[in-house]
């Protein structure tokens, strides 16, 4: 079979998305490290590198529009371009959350640590694994793997509730830690949101592979 013109464009689009995915994954990982290792220099780098991610998002947007306008994809090709176009801003938002975690780290690293970071790194680990698995599932067009990732979001939500309770009681016990605890609460919220965004990526993979919209549907 001859290679179609559109195949080359779709390959470039796929590569660009995976690069964005990998860069985003790394941003989340480094942002959390900047917090747990109290490395403000690393936090600065994560914040600075967010611009690179924004640029990648724009490139993918432009290529997606170009393929839609000039190649007029249909069927699987169409679903692929639509999926990429919808996953791209989701990744960019995940990276924004990473930058926000890094910003919180800059504040927190300047103060004495108010509590050992136990639950937050766990949340970050789950979020990181979910993101990686979601991108792998997209690459291999494995809808079942995506559905499995979606289920893991509950683990992050549970961890978030535990962190919330813990930080609340810390604040009630000792109002002097309120500022630091509030920043940590934001970090937890960022991680919780990342889990939600990963779910969106998974839903788009189910659309790509099964042509089914599973968004806004109740799951068991």
């Amino acid at each position: 079979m001859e290679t179609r013109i559109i195949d080359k464009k779709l390959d470039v689009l796929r590569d660009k998305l995976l690069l964005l995915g990998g860069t985003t994954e790394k941003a989340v990982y480094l942002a959390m490290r900047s917090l747990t290792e109290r490395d403000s220099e690393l936090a600065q780098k994560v914040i600075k590198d967010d611009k690179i991610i924004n640029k990648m998002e724009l490139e993918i947007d432009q290529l997606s529009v170009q393929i839609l306008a000039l190649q007029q994809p249909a069927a699987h090709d169409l679903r692929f371009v639509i999926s990429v176009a919808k996953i791209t801003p989701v990744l960019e938002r995940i990276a924004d959350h990473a930058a926000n975690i890094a910003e919180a780290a800059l504040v927190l690293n300047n103060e004495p640590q108010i509590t050992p970071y136990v639950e937050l790194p766990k949340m970050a680990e789950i979020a990181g694994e979910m993101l990686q698995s979601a991108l792998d599932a997209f690459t291999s067009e494995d809808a079942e793997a995506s559905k499995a990732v979606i289920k893991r979001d509950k683990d992050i939500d549970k961890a978030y509730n535990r962190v919330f309770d813990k930080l609340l009681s810390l604040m009630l016990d000792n109002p002097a830690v309120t500022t630091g605890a509030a920043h940590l609460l934001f970090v937890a919220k960022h991680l919780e949101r990342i889990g939600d965004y990963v779910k969106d990526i998974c839903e788009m993979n189910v659309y790509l592979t099964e042509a089914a919209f599973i968004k806004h549907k109740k799951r068991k």
Partner: protein
Amino acid sequence: MGTKISISHLNFFYGKSQALFDISLKIPEQEVMAFVGPSGCGKSTFLRVLNRMNDTIPNVRVEGKVKIDGNDIYSPKTDVVSLRRRVGMVFQKSNPFPKSIFENVAYGIRINRMHSGKPDLEARVEKALKDAALWDEVKDRLGTSAFGLSGGQQQRLCIARALAVRPEVILMDEPASALDPIATQKIEELVVQLKKKYTIAIVTHNMQQAARISDKTAFFMLGKLIEVNPTEKMFTNPDDKLTEDYITGRFG
């Protein structure tokens, strides 16, 4: 919508060579159905089966049933002239008669004796030209030659000529393939308008055209009907791998 045309187990032969294989399909009334497929797949032959245009070719043979409103059009009782009035056709190349614009449209009304005097004839011509979205462009020059019209206008004149005899079904064989994008757009808009009153079957090589104007799409290959589905499904998630390969250009 009910079924306008029902085709069951249709086989079609040019002499010994079989062109269509066991085709069963229902065409709903007041919808547009697009027939797509590679050149030589039988889609035009199939279109011409629907008003017995193939009868004019020697040595053709038809097996199976083609029913319009439940009546078998290949039954010996069928009046072919009346059938072709009910099932009009528009071809790839516009083919106006070497007559005036008015006479092109009036011709079918006259030979079918459908009018009751000159004012009625004029009213029917005007109506057909309006329905074909051509009236405003030609109303001041109805007596001039049809050949003075642009390609797109000539094609709409042929559509007006088909509409003048009050058909129920309109068959279109690549009606816009020789037209520029603006004329094509006018034909496409017209098709979408016409389906409010008529059942339309259209053969097209332009996939985007099929996507834009049809309610259902039927994909033919090597004389077989591979898939028929709502157009939206066909272009986003076809059932058959062959359809997917064709509409995404994996083979020509």
